[in-house]
């Protein structure tokens, strides 16, 4: 376990802590959220991380996969991970029940620069499962509300049933210390919010780029057009943050799986500014 109490020389970076699933939430037809508590009380108490850091979840016998810790460090009753069914490990995770044991290797990677963001307005733009990493930072900011300026959230999914975190949306919509816009791709019966693709809705919302940071995560095609929309709205490349939790294996910069040229997504990322991404060789 990568706990701060152990030195780099003695810690085994591949050895997961064992945790127990304490709650499972069926978010959408293909996303489940797992709330996990580490079995060792000490590990759980000493667990520290920053919003944006990821973990590797293990189903022993099947393998490991990377997920952002999407509960904030300000709410440590459990660690929350949302899993979209996409491969062997995620399919296996979807079969688990409350009380089941899983391996947790966390925290890994870098994080959103939440200290430097103090005093700024924030625009969150999340698409589909890409809402998960944003949720961590959003909740962290809501828990430290006075430190940040105006908070705007645009969250989109294909259809109403594809929206994750449904149980939180009413609160987010109602709060007067943030502005929330929800959107789906096409009209659906009973839907009372925006309709349209994220980049288009974002243009209409027309957020000011002044003293503002845009933080976006979602499927590649959405990111591509969102970046264009942000540019039109006057956001500079270093005013845009995104996170790439992909192609990781060891998660600690050794196995050679995740490099983009000289950068390793698992240690230099997953969080990058768009300016940093542009500097990287084109190999996403």
């Amino acid at each position: 376990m990568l706990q701060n109490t152990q030195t780099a020389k003695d810690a085994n970076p591949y050895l997961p802590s064992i945790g127990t699933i304490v709650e499972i939430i069926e978010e959408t037809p293909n996303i489940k959220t797992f709330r996990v508590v580490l079995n060792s009380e000490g590990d759980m108490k000493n667990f520290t991380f920053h919003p944006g850091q990821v973990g590797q979840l293990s189903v022993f016998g099947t393998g490991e996969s990377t997920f952002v810790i999407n509960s904030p460090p300000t709410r440590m009753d459990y660690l929350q991970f949302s899993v979209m069914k996409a491969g062997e490990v995620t399919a296996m995770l979807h079969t688990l029940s409350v009380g089941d044991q899983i391996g947790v290797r966390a925290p890994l990677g870098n994080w959103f620069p939440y200290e430097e963001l103090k005093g700024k307005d924030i625009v969150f733009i999340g698409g589909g499962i890409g809402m998960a990493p944003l949720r961590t930072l959003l909740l962290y900011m809501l828990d430290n509300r006075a430190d940040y300026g105006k908070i705007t959230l645009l969250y989109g999914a294909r259809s109403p049933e594809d929206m994750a975190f449904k149980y939180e949306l009413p609160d987010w919509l109602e709060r007067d210390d943030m502005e929330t816009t929800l959107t789906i791709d096409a009209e659906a019966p009973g839907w009372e919010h925006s309709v349209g693709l994220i980049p288009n809705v974002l243009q209409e919302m027309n957020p000011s780029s002044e003293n503002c940071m845009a933080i976006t995560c979602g499927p590649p095609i959405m990111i591509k057009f969102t970046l264009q929309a942000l540019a039109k709205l006057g956001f500079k490349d270093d005013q845009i943050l995104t996170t790439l939790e992909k192609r990781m294996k060891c998660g600690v910069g050794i196995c050679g799986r995740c490099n983009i040229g000289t950068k390793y997504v698992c240690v230099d990322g997953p969080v990058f500014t768009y300016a940093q991404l542009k500097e990287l060789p084109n190999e996403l």
Partner: protein
Amino acid sequence: MAVKFLAKDNLVPWLAELAETHRTIVPKREGEAVVFRPFAKEEAPELSARPTESPKSAIFPQCDTLMSFRYTKDEEDPGKVLLDLREMKDESPAVVVGCRSCDAAGFNTFDRVYMTDKITDQNYRARRENTLFVTIICEKPATTCFCNWVGGSPTDTSGADVRMTPLEDGWVLESITEKGEPLLSSTLLKDGDDRAGDAEKIRQQAKERMPEAPDLSEAPGKVLALFENNDFWEAESAKCISCGACTYLCPTCYCFNITDESSGMEGVRLRTWDNCMSHQFTMEASGHNPRPTKAHRLKNRVGHKFSYYPNIHDGNISCVGCGRCIKSCPVSVDIRSIVLHAIAAPAETEK
């Protein structure tokens, strides 16, 4: 530093002595190939031919067990399943006798990644710290050898604990590190001071036989500058059949995969050599592949060794010039020419 002389006839007895206290690994002939295997008295090691395989697996086995796991029923609550995890490490003392200087130096490439201030690969460290290297100098370079292009030499000691220099009637053995000294305490070894001069002469000749090396100081920048130049990489990789022989035999290729194997309620988590020349290497669960063609993959292999790695690790190139990838490639892809072509390529216009 101790200098000893090992007479020809005493080689096997000396290895037998070492084998009493160490896993002793030596090059052996197996058909056409020379491979590293545990020493056995009946089989003489092959010290004159250059080994086909690198000794990489002595420290980084092709398949290594990282941990074992077991699910058990909770005695008090039979509805509950508990999980037991155990680390697996091999700390037994070992010695590799008769590898070449380039191969021993290959582990320095690993060290900079596997044992840093921030992170330690415990399985790697357990073997690395308990394995000694007795290298043998290369008297005559092969046409594929280019250790001197990348900071090595046929007599280099950067990865050695003891260095052997062959003479007509035996070998001169010098300890290079303190850890290597105990290997020379055997009574089968004679004092070697009077042969040290002969050995030095042989080493001098060996170095002189190496053809002159081109200057690769521009390689990291030049290779990176070609990143967006698909034509260059398509041309260089045109013949490649993605077989992976180059990565398999390379003493510095250190990428790995992690997989689980289980039967019933228990199993192991394994670390196995991976191969960046395969399209599977970067294939994502979504079906997206950031390195879809062999041109992308060869670019990454060459780029990693001659540009990305030196950029991160103080200019050290992560190729030791052993030439195996050139010699064993079924279609004769030559990493030397790729690097030289990159250096000679006209400066790229902005992407």
